[in-house]
């Protein structure tokens, strides 16, 4: 159907201004589609990075066994309790075989970092001032594996070692601490250690900056009387959206209870879904506008070219040929408008910072989420569908009536 292509092209180039206007109209629709894709995708990325970017994507925690309950063997149905073990003061469970699982977890595809940790509560004492803190023991060298501590450091170094502690700026302000000063940390187990402040961080999160203390894993072992094992393993993934499937995989591999970040984040997920739905609506409206624009322009063209269509039919052009000519026009408009709009969209998004450099106060437009191919493909399909009605109308033109016009 080379000849039909030629005629379609000739019709489009015959009315250059009209065709250009039509292509610009389609391009604007595609531009909106791409802009919305980049904005909705970028916004979701921004929200996720701000909310879950610094937390563990998958967490494996030791399960705390309930105290044993002894029931009378003679009356199982009645369940007479004979003896109950009270929960002890120390409820810290241990992943005693962590060292065995770590290499296996690290080898799972998509796992970026694995951080074995010992966590617990403690009291920080500086002179007469006391502050309750949540203590996290990290493996030296993996201080920034989950939370980007290094990126948040405002003083000193993130490097943890024996006898060193890293605190948030709000806590150091409250206790009037400065780098190099010593302080006492008493754990919930009653163990006390004297530590030197080696670094101060500022995450912007009040709870974190005012109540978290990071020490080395070895210091935490001493504080919480845990000579081996860890209390939890935190895992960071390349793609946080893969948390559910990767958690299942890790659970299957290790038998441990791997919990993805999405557990307990239903409200966040609902909000993101609602945002995505809004994006779909806006993009759908953009596509509908394109379809209506192309259909109306081609219908006008069909009406204007009725005598020519009549001549073509009289000269032996089949109805299928006429349909092909007009559908091809629609496809050409869709393709040119789609490519132009996609190119404009890409160029317009270029000045915005990349997803890794999103900053508060700026539009989080993610150039990688422009859905360029999808926009072009949907526009092409939409334009073809839009041209079917005018094309069928053209094919039904009665040559006798049309020639007589």
């Amino acid at each position, binding site marked *: 159907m080379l*000849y039909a292509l*030629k005629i379609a092209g000739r019709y489009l180039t015959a009315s250059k201004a009209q065709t250009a206007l039509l292509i610009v109209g389609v391009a604007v629709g595609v531009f909106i589609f791409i802009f919305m894709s980049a904005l909705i995708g970028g916004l979701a990325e921004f929200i996720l990075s701000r909310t879950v970017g610094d937390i563990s994507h998958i967490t494996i925690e030791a399960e705390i066994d309930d105290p044993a309950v002894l029931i009378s063997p003679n009356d199982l149905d009645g369940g007479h309790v004979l003896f109950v073990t009270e929960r002890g003061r120390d409820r810290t469970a241990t992943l005693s075989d962590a060292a065995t699982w770590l290499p296996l977890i690290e080898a799972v595809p998509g796992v970026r970092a694995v951080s074995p940790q010992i966590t617990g509560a403690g009291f920080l004492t500086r002179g007469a001032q006391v502050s309750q803190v949540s203590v996290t023991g990290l493996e030296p060298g993996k201080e920034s594996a989950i939370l980007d501590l290094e990126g948040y450091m405002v003083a000193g170094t993130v490097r943890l070692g024996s006898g060193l502690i890293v605190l948030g700026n709000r806590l150091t302000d409250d206790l009037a601490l400065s780098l190099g000063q010593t302080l006492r940390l008493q754990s919930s187990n009653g163990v006390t250690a004297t530590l030197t402040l080696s670094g101060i961080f500022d995450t912007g999160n009040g709870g974190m900056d005012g109540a978290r203390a990071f020490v080395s894993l070895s210091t935490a072992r001493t504080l919480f009387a845990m000579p081996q094992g860890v209390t939890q393993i935190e895992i960071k993934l390349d793609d946080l959206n893969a948390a559910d499937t990767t958690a299942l995989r890790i659970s299957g591999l290790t038998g441990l209870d791997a919990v993805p970040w999405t557990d307990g984040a239903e409200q966040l997920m609902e909000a993101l879904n609602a945002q995505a739905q809004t994006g779909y609506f806006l993009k759908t409206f953009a596509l509908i506008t394109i379809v209506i624009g192309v259909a109306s322009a081609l219908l006008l063209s069909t009406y204007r070219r009725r005598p020519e269509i009549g*001549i073509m039919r009289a000269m*032996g052009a089949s109805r299928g040929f006429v349909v092909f000519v007009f559908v091809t026009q629609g496809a050409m408009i869709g393709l040119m408008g789609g490519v132009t709009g996609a190119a404009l969209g890409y160029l317009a998004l270029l000045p915005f910072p990349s997803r890794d450099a999103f900053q508060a106060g700026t539009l989080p437009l993610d150039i990688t989420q422009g859905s360029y191919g999808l926009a072009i493909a949907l526009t092409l399909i939409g334009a073809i569908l839009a041209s079917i009605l005018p094309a069928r109308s053209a094919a039904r033109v009665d040559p006798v009536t049309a020639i007589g016009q």
Partner: protein
Amino acid sequence: MTISQSALLEVSDLVKTFGTGDVATRVLRGLSLSLAKGEMAALLGPSGSGKSTLLTILGTLMKPTSGSYNMLDQDLIAADDNQLTVFRNLHIGFVFQFHNLLPDFTALENVIFPTAVRMGRETSAARDRGRDLLVRMGLEERINFPSTKLSGGQKQRVAVARALMNGPELVLADEPTGNLDRASASQVMELIGQINREEGTTFLISTHDEKIAGLCRRQLVVGDGIVTG
């Protein structure tokens, strides 16, 4: 119906009614006609006598209400739209009063349209034939001219060349000179006569002009929906 040995086409008892009920208008009232191969006939008659309707039916652009139409041993009443489209493309050429060229195409592109639309592309053989026809029409200087920039006479000559492109057995011309000045009209009619003589193409020319009709070897007069003479 059996077509006679030398006849190109035969129609008999053609009836064409437009509209229904009280507003029904019977334009053809049992018209019968036969055209021999190589004939050059004029179709005369007053306005509204049914000349254009007859040409439209003969050109397979419209079907009669009743009657028969055979051409080249084919029953064209029974043929469907696709068959008629192919038949029209191969065997029938049209020349209209208002040239009806495709405005966005050059003279050559207009001429080769009937072949290109059948082949699905513009072949070099088609271009060669198109050029030959335009040269024959005296338009060698206008081959690649946009059709909109041609004069009325030139446009009509391009239309004649287009009608001849696929070497049809029959060319139907509806007032081909009706929109031309005397000189251009004579030129077009000379060309038609020359092609008729040299190639044996059958022409049926609808006209009001007695002088044009006089150039044809046969005159058919249509009146009140039938051939009266």
